[in-house]
C-alpha cells in the first residue's frame, strides 16, 4: 500500500469537537435570544439609566438628565450612609444576612443534613428530605403567610410551643426581626445545599469510607478528611449560587415588609422601594449595578479559593 503524499493546501486546522462550532452556535441560539432580550438588554438599560435621574413620575420622567455618578454618590453619601433606611445600612445588613443565613445557615445545615441522611434509615431520610424540600419549593406567598401565622405573638405556633415548654413567648417580628429573616431564609433555602451535597457525597465511591472505617476513623474524621475534600468543587458551586440567591432574595419582604423601621430592609428590598415605591429609576438602577458588582466579587473570591486548593 502506498499513498502519495498529497500536498494538502494550507488550511486552518479546526480541532474535532463533539459539537462543531456551527452546530454549537445553533444550539446556543434559542437561549441566546431569550437571554439577550430579557437579561442582556435590561442589564445595559440598568447601567445606562443608573447615570441618569430618570423617575417614573414627576418632571424627570419625561426629560431625564445625564447626571454622571450622582446616583452613586448619593448612595454613598457619608452623611447618611449608615442611617437606617439608607443604602449603607441595607448593604451591611445584607452582608450580615448572607453570612448568617447563606454561609452559616444554608450551607452548613445543608452539609449537615446531607451527611446525616447518608447513614440514617431510608424512611427517616425520606421524611426529613420531604419536609426540607417542601420548605424550598412551596410558593413564596404561601410560605410568607405560613411564617406570619407561625410567628404571631398571640396565637402563633412558635409561642404556643415555647409556652408549652415553660419558656416565655417572644414578639419575634418586632424584637428580633433580623434573626427572624435569617432563620427564615435558612429554613427556606437549606434544601438546595442539602441536595447538592447529598449527590456529591453519594458520588464518592463507598470504598473510600470503608477504608476509613477499617482504619478506625470516627464519623467526624471521615467527614473532615474524606467527604469534605472530595466535594470541594460542589462546595464552590453551592456557595456561588446560594450567596447570589440570598444576596438578591426578596422573599423576606413578604414576612416583614422590610420593617420594622427598615431593620430588615435588605438591598433587594431597598432597591424595590427606591425603584417601585419612590419610582426613582435612576437611583434604583445604581443600586442594581452595585449589587451586581458585589455578586461578582463574591464569585471571584469563591472561584479563586476553589482553584487554589485544587492546585495544592
Amino acid at each position: 500500500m502506498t499513498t502519495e503524499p498529497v500536498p494538502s493546501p494550507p488550511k486552518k486546522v479546526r480541532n474535532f469537537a463533539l459539537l462543531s462550532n456551527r452546530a454549537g452556535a445553533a444550539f446556543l441560539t434559542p437561549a441566546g435570544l431569550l437571554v439577550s432580550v430579557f437579561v442582556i438588554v435590561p442589564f445595559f438599560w440598568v447601567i445606562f439609566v443608573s447615570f441618569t435621574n430618570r423617575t417614573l413620575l414627576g418632571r424627570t420622567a419625561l426629560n431625564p438628565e445625564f447626571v454622571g455618578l450622582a446616583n452613586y454618590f448619593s448612595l454613598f453619601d457619608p452623611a447618611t450612609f449608615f442611617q437606617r433606611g439608607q443604602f449603607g445600612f441595607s448593604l451591611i445588613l445584607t452582608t450580615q444576612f448572607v453570612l448568617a443565613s447563606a454561609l452559616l445557615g444554608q450551607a452548613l445545615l445543608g452539609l449537615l443534613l446531607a451527611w446525616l441522611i447518608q447513614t440514617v434509615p431510608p424512611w427517616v431520610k425520606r421524611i426529613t428530605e420531604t419536609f426540607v424540600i417542601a420548605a424550598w419549593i412551596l410558593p413564596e406567598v404561601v410560605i410568607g403567610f405560613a411564617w406570619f401565622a407561625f410567628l404571631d405573638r398571640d396565637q402563633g405556633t412558635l409561642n404556643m410551643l415555647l409556652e408549652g415548654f415553660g419558656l416565655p413567648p417572644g414578639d419575634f417580628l418586632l424584637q428580633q426581626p433580623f434573626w427572624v429573616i435569617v432563620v427564615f431564609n435558612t429554613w427556606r433555602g437549606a434544601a438546595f445545599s442539602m441536595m447538592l451535597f447529598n449527590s456529591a457525597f453519594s458520588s464518592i465511591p463507598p470504598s473510600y469510607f470503608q477504608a476509613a472505617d477499617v482504619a478506625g476513623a470516627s464519623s467526624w474524621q471521615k467527614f473532615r478528611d474524606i467527604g469534605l475534600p472530595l466535594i470541594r468543587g460542589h462546595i464552590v458551586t453551592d456557595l456561588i449560587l446560594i450567596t447570589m440567591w440570598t444576596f438578591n432574595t426578596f422573599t423576606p419582604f413578604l414576612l416583614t415588609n422590610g420593617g420594622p423601621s427598615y431593620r430588615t430592609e435588605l438591598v433587594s428590598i431597598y432597591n424595590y422601594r427606591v425603584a417601585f415605591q419612590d419610582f426613582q429609576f435612576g437611583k434604583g438602577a445604581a443600586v442594581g449595578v452595585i449589587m451586581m458588582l458585589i455578586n461578582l466579587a463574591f464569585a471571584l473570591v469563591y472561584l479563586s479559593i476553589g482553584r487554589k486548593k485544587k492546585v495544592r
Partner: protein
Amino acid sequence: MKNRMRALALGLIGATSVAIPAFAVDLNVTCRCVIGGVNSGTAQWIQESVIPAFEAAHPDVKVTLNQFGGEDAQLTQQLALDFSTGAGPDVSAFDGFLIPSFVEGGLLKSLDEVAGPEVNDWSGWAALSEGSRSLMEYQGKFYGIPLGTDVRMIHTRKDILAEAGIDADNWQPKSWEEVLDAARAIKKIKPDSFPIQLNAGVAMGEATTMQGYWLALLGTGEKVTDDNGKFVVSSQGILDTLNLYKTIYVDEALGDQRAQLLADGRNRSFANFRDGVTALLFEGDYFYRSVTPEGSEFAVPNRDEVMGWVKVPAQEPGKGIRGQDFVTISGGTGFVINPATDAPKEAWAFLSFMNEPEMQNAFQAIQPRITARKDIEIPNSPFLTATSQALLPLTTARPNNPNYNAVSSEIQRMTEAVVSGELSPEEAMAQYKAAVTALVGAENTVSLL
C-alpha cells in the same frame, strides 16, 4: 428560514394579543375595588348600576370593569407604567394627590386635551363644590372628575370614656392635653389598654401622613409646605408633633406601639378599637362608612350606642392652622381618562355619565358618602351629615406638588423613628431635613427654626 421564523413570531403574537372586537368600542375601567372585597361598594356600583345603564344608553359601547384587588401603591405602579407606554385602562379610579406627579411625568393630560373642548360644556362642573373640584385639578386644568371627598376626626368609644368617668356625650377636647388626659384616665382604669391611635410608621403608608401627622401638625398652625409651596423641614410645629407621638407611644404607652410598626398594623389598630382596647382613634369618615358597619370585619358591636366622634383639637385653642380651634384635612378620589385611550369620546361619555346625579344617587343607595356634587343628598346618615357640616368648613387639602408623594414617605419614616424610640424628635427632624433637601433641593425647602 428567516421568513418562516418571522411568520412564526408574528403568529404567536397575533394569536395571543388580538382580541376579536364584538362591539364597535371597548372601554376598560379599573378601580381598586372588588365585589365582596376591597371597596366592594364602588365595584358593585360600577358593575351593577353604571355599566348596565351606560350600555343601555350607548349600545355600541362595551364596558368592562377590571377589579384590582391589590394595594393602592400597586395600582399606582401599574397605572404609571401603563400610561407611560400608552397602555392601560381607558378610565381609572385615581387618588387626587397623585395628579401633580403624574402630570409632570407626562402620564396624564387634561380632560379637554384628551376628549376635546366639549368637556368644558359638561353641566356637572357647576354642581361640584369648589373644594372638591380642586382635588382633581392642577395648574388650572381638570384631569378628572372627583367622586367624593372626606373629612377627619377622632372616633371615640363612648362606653369606655364613660367608664373612665368622662361625660362622653358632651366631651369635646379643646387641646392636645385634654385628649391625653382622657387617655391617661382610661389607661389608669385599664392598664392593658392603648387608648389613643394616632397613625405613625412606614407600614401604613399615606394613612400615617393623612390620618396621623397632618392632624397633629395642623394643630400647631403649620402645614407640610409654607404659603410659597416650599417644604418646611424644621420647625417648632414638627417638633411638637413628634413630641406628641413620643408622649403617646414611647413615654406613656398611651398607644399601641406594635400596631404602628407591624406590617398589618392598620388592621390591628382597627381591631383594637373594635375590641375596646383603643377608645380614641384618629381617622376619616371612611372608618365609619367602610370599616365599622355591621357585618364587616371590624364592626363595632352596638355601634350607634358606643361609637361617637369629636373634632380634632388644635394644640391649644386658637393655635391651629388659620388660627382655628379645631382642624381637619380632606382628600379625595375620582376617575381619570387614560391620555392614550383609543376612544376618548366614549371614555369621556362614560366618565361624565357616572357623575350624573342619577348615578351618584345610585351610589349613595349602596354606600353613603360625602359626595363631590352639591346637589346630591346624603341619605339617612346622621353621621355623615353632621361631620360634613361641622368639618368641611375647617378643612385643608394636601399641597398640589409633584414631590408630595416622596416627601410623605419621609414623613412616615420620621414618625416611625420617633415612635419606635430609636431617635429623639430632634434627631428625627434632622434626618427628615436632610432627606427632603436631597429630594427637592435646598431652594424648595424652608427652615422655621
